[in-house]
């Protein structure tokens, strides 16, 4: 399953929001990845997520595969929408 999301945090996906994302990903069993037009990374890896350098307004695709994929996508996209607060 896939879902397209936008980074609306003013300073992009910095350490704090990226950390919240990675922690949330850790609560699911599915394989979860983040995909940009340049590359695809493991969403459990804080450094890989941060290294995507997602700035304000960047679009990214969440890809989840596994038993809880639907719930994962819903939860994670909600986090993007809520600015990880």
């Amino acid at each position, binding site marked *: 399953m896939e879902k397209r999301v936008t980074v609306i945090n003013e*300073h*992009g996906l*910095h*350490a*704090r929001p990226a*950390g919240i994302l*990675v*922690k949330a990903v850790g609560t699911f069993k599915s394989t979860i990845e983040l995909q940009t037009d340049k590359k695809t*990374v*493991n969403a*459990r*890896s*804080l*450094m*890989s997520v*941060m*290294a995507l*350098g997602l*700035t304000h307004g960047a679009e990214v695709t969440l890809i989840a595969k596994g038993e809880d994929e639907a719930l994962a996508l819903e939860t994670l996209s909600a986090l993007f929408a809520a600015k990880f607060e």
Partner: protein
Amino acid sequence: MNASKVFTGSVVSFGLVAAKALVVKSLELKISKESIAPSQVSTEVARLESAISSSVLELQEVRSHANAKMGAESAAIFEAHLLMLNDPELFEKTKEVIATQLVNTEFAFHQVSEEFIALFSSMDDEYMRERALDVRDISRRVLRHLLGVQEANLAHLPEEVILVAYDLTPSQTAVMDKNKVVGMVTEVGGKTSHTAIMANSLGIAALVGVNKITAEIQSGDQLAINGETGELYLHPDPEQLSDLMKRKDAYLQKRKILESLKGVPSTTPDGQQVHLLANIASDEELKFVLASDAEGIGLFRTEFLYMNRTSLPSEEEQFLVYRKVLQEMQGRPVTIRTIDIGGDKEIDYLNLPKELNPFLGVRAIRLCFKRPELFKTQLRALLRASVYGHLKIMFPMISSLEELLAAKAVVDEVKNALQSEGIPFAPNLPLGIMIEVPSAAIISDVLAQHVDFFSIGTNDLIQYTLAVDRLNQELQSLYSPFNLACLRLIELTIKNGKQHGIEVGMCGSVAGSEEMIPLLLGMGLDEFSMSARQILPARKVVTSTTKAFALEIAAKVLSMHSGQEIENYLRANSSLKMS
């Protein structure tokens, strides 16, 4: 029994103590590439797992300490570090390198983390580029565990220790457990290094310029510091220890005499009153100030509020600290110096450009003009706090009248803003300047017409007058407060200040020096600001030196030509008086 050995250094803070050594190494992590057999892969991976989990445990402790001491915001950085340590990519990639290239864990982990560091370093976003430092930090932590190199956690110490280091950084001394560190010895550093300043403020014994200690002393070795002779004993023998105890008894005896001077005015036998104040670098030192019987605070160095953190302190945060200091001093004067960042005090998050010559660069008030928001935030916090006590604001590094007028204009601007917001501040708040640049001393007659007080900062005044880097150990003998040029500038500043009816104080190391006090009294200095522990000894000098004699000393010293001659004369005078 280990053979005892004696090292010598310069005493920068007095003390007679014995405790175990804690060697603080500036870590040089040597990563060598070693080939392994396929059968060793699992052992190497297990080493990686164990190093990561030890690092996690260590970081969790750092985080909870930071949380308790500095608040959740400061602890957030360690939260990010923990997530990086647990990063599956870091682990998997390292495992892969070990298994495919058949190399040792150190080499593999170093290679993988350097790839991440390079990745972050190459990013466009400045914030992201800085994250390379975080990766390097966690990488070093793991490598330390792999190599079995111990890094001292100075914030949590189980027993009393004497720190042994090549040098101690301001951040190390700021986070160290101040109740457990009884002494500090370093290979480098001078009389005005941070180690010296911090040790003095905290009343911790400290020796600097002690050669080869980091190579010859191991953590856990028994040490003793003799702050009277400048000796450091490694594995002291019973004789050395009993001598130390005897000296300590004699010292305590003398201390008792000093205690009797508490509450006594700082007045010469012939009725000249001066004021003895304390220098502080953080509100944590207030208890020492209150115990010392200081008549106020002559210098509160605010830059420490900006250090050991990842972002600027907010106006509210600063206000609370300033208010606390003013309230605890209960109406006694408190001179707060606006930030003196730059020079040897760097603050990473300000991203200041590297300078070839930082002591002559964008430092102190110069930085405040480049970053007006930073300056205004501090002034707002200070003005808001001003109604809670007797505040005096002081600007550092003023070198021209234009700078002084510009700083005063910013104060007026902030006052107007507060007034329109209906926020109260003390009327007639005294504004003063540090006289620490020779140009300021030379035009002190002009500057005196625009301020309420001067405070002579001798540490920088000496270094700038003599063109001697005060941190350069090779030049310690040239860095002399007895130099006639320095003394003439001090005398000129006091004279000009008096002529224009303003108070003249001094807040450099010279102000607390027992041999210098009679001379400064003779020159007419009103306020002497020093480490809290120097207050009572200074009062003893003041109450036993007549103004008439002090005038004689000043006249005599200013007629001498050689610094050595001046030093010998003042030393001889001082020991005569003290015996």
